[in-house]
C-alpha cells in the first residue's frame, strides 16, 4: 500500500524507508526462526516440493518407528526360539542316551516335565503386551498352562486322560492289542478287532513245516496257521504288526522241543492239538508283552499327536467311549470336554503372514509366528508325551516301555527331512531382521538427503541473513541520514 500522501514531501523516499524496515523485520524473523518464510507463498517455487518432502520425511520416520518396533519383537521372539531349540536339543540327548531310570517318574520324565513348563513359558513370550506366538490373536496367550495341558481343566480333559483313554482302546480288555488268538482242532487263528485301535496285522511269514499260513485277509483282517503235521524244532513264524503311530514290529515265535519254552518260543507238543494250544499260549504271551511296551508307547505318541494337532476350529480326535477298551471309532472332541493347548489364532494361512509391517513404501515384512507351527508343535508334543505318560515302576515291562517311548520321542524331536524345525523359524526371522536393518540404514541416508533439500527450500543460512542484515542496516542509516538532511535544506532557514 503506497503511503497516502499527507504532504508533498518525497513520497517514494518514505515508502522505500518503510519497505526497508519491513525487510529488516523479516530478516530478523529469519534469523530467529531459521525459516525462510512464515507462509507458503514466501517459500518460492519449491513450496510444493517441500510439502512432498515433508510427507516423505514423515513417512520415513513412521517406517523407522515401525522398524524399531518390529526389531524389538523379533529379538524377543528369537530369544524365545533360541531357548526352545536348546531345550529340544537337551531332551533329544537325554532320550537318545536312554537315561530312563528312576522311581515313580523316571528322571527323564522329570526333565521332560520341567522342559515342557519352560517351553510353554517361552511360547507365551510377550513384547509390549503382545503375545508373540499367538498369530493374529496377540491379545491372548499362545498356549494353555502346563497344568491344564497335562492334567486337564475340570470337565475338559488333558493330555494324560487322552493318553490313558487311547491306551485302553489300543490295548483292549485282554491287553493283547485288540487281537483275539483262537484255536480250532488243527489251527491257530488271530483276529483283528474292528476300528482303528490296537495291532493291525500287516503280514505273516512262516518257516513252519507242515503248516500253512493263510492271511492276513479280510477286514477286519484275520490270520490262520493250519497244522497238517508237527513243525520241526527251530521253525519260525513271524507276524508283522502295524502300530497306531505308523511304526511296525515283527513278532517271531520259534518252535522248540524244550518245555517250558523260552521267550517267544512255543513247545512242539505230543499232538497237533497240543502244539496248536502251545502256539496259542506263546502268541498270547508275546502279544501281551509287545502291547504293554511298543504298542503302549505308540498309543501314547498317537494320542499326543491327536491332542497337539488340534486347534479351536478342529478339537482333538478322541476315543469314542466309555467304555474305551471296546471302542471301535474315534470321535471329535469339543472345546467343552477337551483342553485345546493352542489358544492363539487358528487360521490355516501361513503363520508369517499373521504379523506384517510395511517398512518401506514397497516392502512389507512378515514375521508372525504361531505356537502350533510344525517346528514348535513337534517339540512341545514330543516333550509333553514323555512328560504325561503314567509310569508304574512295579511293572516288569516298564523299562522296555520307556525305551520304546524314548526311541519314538527321539525320532519325533529329530523330525523327518523337509519338516519344519525351530531352527527354520529362527532362520526365517533372522532374514527379516537383516532386511529391516538394511532398510533402516537406507532410510537414514534418504532422510539426510531429504532434510538437506527441505533446508534448501525453506531454511536460511545464518551467514547470508547476517550479511544481508548488515548491508540493509547500512543502507537504512544512509537513507535516513539523507532524508533528514533533505528536510533541513529549505530556503525558510536562510530567510532573514
Amino acid at each position, binding site marked *: 500500500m503506497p503511503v497516502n500522501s499527507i504532504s508533498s514531501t518525497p513520497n517514494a523516499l518514505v*515508502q522505500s524507508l518503510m519497505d526497508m524496515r519491513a525487510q529488516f523485520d523479516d530478516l530478523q524473523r529469519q534469523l530467529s526462526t531459521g525459516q525462510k518464510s512464515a507462509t507458503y507463498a514466501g517459500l518460492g517455487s519449491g513450496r510444493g516440493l517441500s510439502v512432498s518432502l515433508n*510427507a516423505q520425511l514423515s513417512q520415513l520416520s513412521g517406517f523407522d518407528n515401525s522398524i524399531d518396533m518390529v526389531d524389538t519383537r523379533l529379538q524377543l521372539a528369537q530369544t524365545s526360539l533360541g531357548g526352545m531349540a536348546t531345550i529340544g536339543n537337551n531332551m533329544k540327548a537325554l532320550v537318545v542316551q536312554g537315561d530312563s531310570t528312576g522311581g515313580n517318574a523316571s528322571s527323564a520324565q522329570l526333565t521332560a516335565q520341567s522342559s515342557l513348563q519352560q517351553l510353554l513359558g517361552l511360547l507365551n513370550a510377550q513384547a509390549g503386551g503382545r503375545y508373540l506366538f499367538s498369530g493374529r490373536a496377540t491379545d491372548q496367550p499362545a498356549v494353555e498352562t502346563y497344568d491344564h495341558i497335562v492334567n486337564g481343566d475340570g470337565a475338559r480333559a488333558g493330555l494324560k486322560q487322552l493318553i490313558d483313554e487311547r491306551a485302553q482302546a489300543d490295548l483292549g480288555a485282554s491287553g493283547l492289542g485288540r487281537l483275539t488268538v483262537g484255536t480250532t482242532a488243527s489251527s491257530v487263528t488271530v483276529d483283528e478287532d474292528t476300528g482303528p485301535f490296537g495291532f493291525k496285522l500287516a503280514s505273516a511269514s512262516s518257516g513252519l513245516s507242515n503248516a500253512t499260513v493263510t492271511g492276513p485277509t479280510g477286514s477286519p483282517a484275520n490270520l490262520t496257521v493250519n497244522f497238517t503235521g508237527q513243525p520241526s524244532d527251530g521253525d519260525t513264524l513271524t507276524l508283522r504288526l502295524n502300530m497306531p503311530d505308523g511304526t511296525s514290529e515283527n513278532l517271531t515265535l520259534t518252535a522248540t522241543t524244550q518245555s517250558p519254552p523260552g521267550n517267544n518260543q512255543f513247545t512242539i507238543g505230543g499232538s497237533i492239538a497240543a502244539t496248536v494250544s502251545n502256539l496259542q499260549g506263546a502268541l498270547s504271551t508275546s502279544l501281551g508283552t509287545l502291547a504293554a511296551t511298543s504298542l503302549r508307547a505308540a498309543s501314547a505318541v498317537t494320542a499326543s499327536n491327536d491332542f497337539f494337532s488340534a486347534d479351536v476350529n478342529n478339537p482333538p480326535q478322541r476315543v469314542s467311549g466309555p467304555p474305551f477298551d471296546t471302542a471301535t471309532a474315534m470321535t471329535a472332541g469339543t472345546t467343552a470336554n477337551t483342553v485345546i493347548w493352542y489358544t492363539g489364532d487358528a487360521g490355516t494361512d501361513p503363520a508369517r503372514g499373521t504379523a506384517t509391517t510395511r517398512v518401506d513404501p514397497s516392502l512389507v515384512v512378515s514375521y508372525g509366528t504361531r505356537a502350533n507351527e510344525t517346528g514348535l508343535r513337534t517339540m512341545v508334543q514330543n516333550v509333553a508325551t514323555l512328560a504325561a505318560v503314567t509310569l508304574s515302576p512295579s511293572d516288569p515291562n516298564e523299562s522296555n516301555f520307556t525305551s520304546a517311548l524314548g526311541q519314538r520321542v527321539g525320532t519325533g524331536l529329530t523330525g523327518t527331512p523337509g519338516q519344519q524345525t525351530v531352527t527354520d523359524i529362527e532362520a526365517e526371522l533372522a532374514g527379516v531382521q537383516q532386511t529391516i536393518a538394511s532398510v533402516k540404514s537406507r532410510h537414514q541416508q534418504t532422510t539426510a538427503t531429504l532434510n538437506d533439500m527441505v533446508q534448501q527450500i525453506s531454511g536460511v543460512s545464518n551467514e547470508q541473513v547476517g550479511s544481508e542484515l548488515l548491508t540493509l542496516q547500512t543502507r537504512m542509516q544512509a537513507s535516513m541520514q539523507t532524508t533528514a538532511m533533505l528536510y533541513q535544506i529549505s530556503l525558510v532557514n536562510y530567510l532573514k
Partner: protein
Amino acid sequence: MSLTQALTTALSGLNAAQTSLSLVAGNVANSQTPGYVRKVAVLTQNSVGTDGTSVQVAAINRVLDQFVQAQLRTESAGAGYADVRSKLFSQLQDVYGTPNTTSTLESSFNTFTSALQALTTSPDDPTAKSAVLTAAQQFAQQLNTMSDGVQGLRQQAELALSDDVSQANNCMQQIAQLNEQLSAAGQDSSAASLADQRDAYISQLSKLMDIRVINSGNNQVTVLTSSGVELVGAKASTLSFDAQGVVTPQAQWSADPAKRTIGTVTLTSPNGAKTDLVANGALRGGEIAGYLEMRDQTLVQAQAQLDQLAGAMASALSDTTTDGTGVTSGAQAGFDVDIGALQAGNTVSITYTDTATSKQHQITLMRVDDPSALPLSNNATTNPNDTVIGLDFSGGMASVVAQINAALGGTGMTASNPAGTTLRVLDDGAANTVDVNAMSATATATSLTGSVAMPFFMDGSIPYTGAITSTGAESAGFAGRIAVNQSLLDDPSKLVAYQSSIDAADATRPNFLYDQMVNATLTYSPTAGIGTAGSPFSADAGTYLRQIISVQGAAAANASSLAQGQDVVLSSLQQRFDNGSGVNIDQEMSDLLSLQNAYAANARVMSTVRDMLTSLMQM
C-alpha cells in the same frame, strides 16, 4: 492627468502583489494538505486612458497536470484492486499455516498417516488406535478451522464491500454537489478550492472503482465506470449493497436473484432504473472489484479445494466399488450389478463403446433422494468426462429401470431388473451398434462393521455420500463439517474389528485405511481449479494436498508481487503529480521575496507620485 494615473496603477500593482502574497501564504499553509493543488494568480495588464497600463488579477489558477492526474486515477484503481487481492491472499496464506510447523494441514495429514502406519504394525495396541483417532480428529479440526478461515475472509470481503460501496456512494454524492456549486462559481480562489475538493473525491472514488472522468466544460465533470456506466452526471446515481450477515460455503453469487445468497452491487440511476453491476461485469478495477473477485472466485475455489480433499478422503475410507458380473441374454451381452446398497450420491458407472465411432463413453447413474435436484449437471461427479443421470429411487426398482431406460434411449443399451435389487444393462445384441465394456456400483458403508471400508469421517453425524439436493451438493463446505465418526471414537476397537470375531492383531482394516490414505488414487473435480476437464487431477490425497499448497502459494506470491509492482507505479506517478502540482516551499519563499520587492517598488512609485504632487502643490 498622468500622475493620478500612475498612482492608480501603483495601487493596482499593490493589490496584485497582495493577492499573490495571500496565495503564497495559502500555498505555504496548505503545503501539507492532501489533495491541495498549488494556486497561482494570473495577472493581466489593463490599459487605462491613453498612456496608462495597470495590472489586474484575471484568475486564480490551479497548477495541474491533467494528463498525470488521469493516469494517476487509472493506476489508483489498479493499485486498489491489487492491494485488496494481495492483502486477502496473504491472510489466506495464514489459513494454510506456517511451513514446517504443526499448524499446517500437511503436518496434520502426515501425523494421521503415520499413526495409521503405526496401527498397521500394532493393530492390537490400544495406544496406536487412540493415536489414529486423535490424529484424525486433529486433521478434521484443521480442515474445519481452515474452512472457517476461508469463510471468515469471504465475510470480511462482504463487509468491506459494504463499506466500500457506501464510501463510493458518498464520493459520488459529493462530486455531484460540488459540480453544482462549481457551475455557479467564477474564476476565483473559492472555485479553485471546490475543484480541489472535487478532485479529492474523484481520487478517493478511483481507488474503489475503475472510473473514467470527462470534463464536460463549464467546470463540470461526468464520472463513468471504465465500462461506461454513468455514476455521476447531472446528478449522482446511488450504489447499494445488500450485505449478508453470515457467509457460509453454500452462499454463492448468482445472476439469478432467487438463487443469490450473498450481496451484490446495485446501481440506481437518478431516474430510478436499477442495474446489477456484478451481473453485467461493470466493475473491473478498484477495491470493489478486488473484493468481489476474492469473495466469488478465489476464496470459493480455496474452499472447494478443501472440500474436494475432505470429500475424497471420506469417500476413500467409506466407499466400496463392486464390479458387475457379466451376463448374456441371447445375442445381448452386458452386466449385472446389485444397487440395493446405494445411498443418495452413490453411483453406478457404465462404460460403453459406440461401435460406429469406436469411441468409449461413460455414464454415471447417481441416486438422488431429493427429486427437485433433478436433472443433474454433468459436473455432479468428480469425473468431468461422464454423462451424469440422477435417479429417483422412491418409486422402487421398476421406476429406476424406467428412468435409466429413458436416459439410455439413444445409446442402444437397455436396462432391466432380473431379480431383487439387481440392475442389468445389456447391449443391443445382433444390431451391434453398442458394446457395454464395464459396469460397477459404488456404495458408502454406513456401519462400522460388515465391510473393510467404514464411515471413518462423517458429515456431522451422517455418513458422507456426496448426495445432491436442491440446496446444492453435500460436498459444498464439507471441509467445515468433516468429523471423525462418533461411534468410532466411542469404540476404537472398530479400527481393527471390521466384523465380529476378528483377531486382535488382524491388520486387514488398518492396512486398508493406510493404503487408501497414502496410495489410493482419488479423482478430484477440476471445478476446484486443480486439473482440467481434459485431464482431471487424480492422485493420492497427499499429492492433492501438495497441489493445493502449491497453487495457493503461487497465487499469493503472484498477487503480492503484482501489488508491489502496482505500488511502485502508483508511487512514482504520485511523485510526478506532486512535483508538478504540489507546494514547494523553496519556490514559495523565492516568490515571497520577489513579491516583497514588487510591493516595495509599487509603494515607492506611490511615494514618488506623492512627492511630485507635493512639489506641484508648493509651487
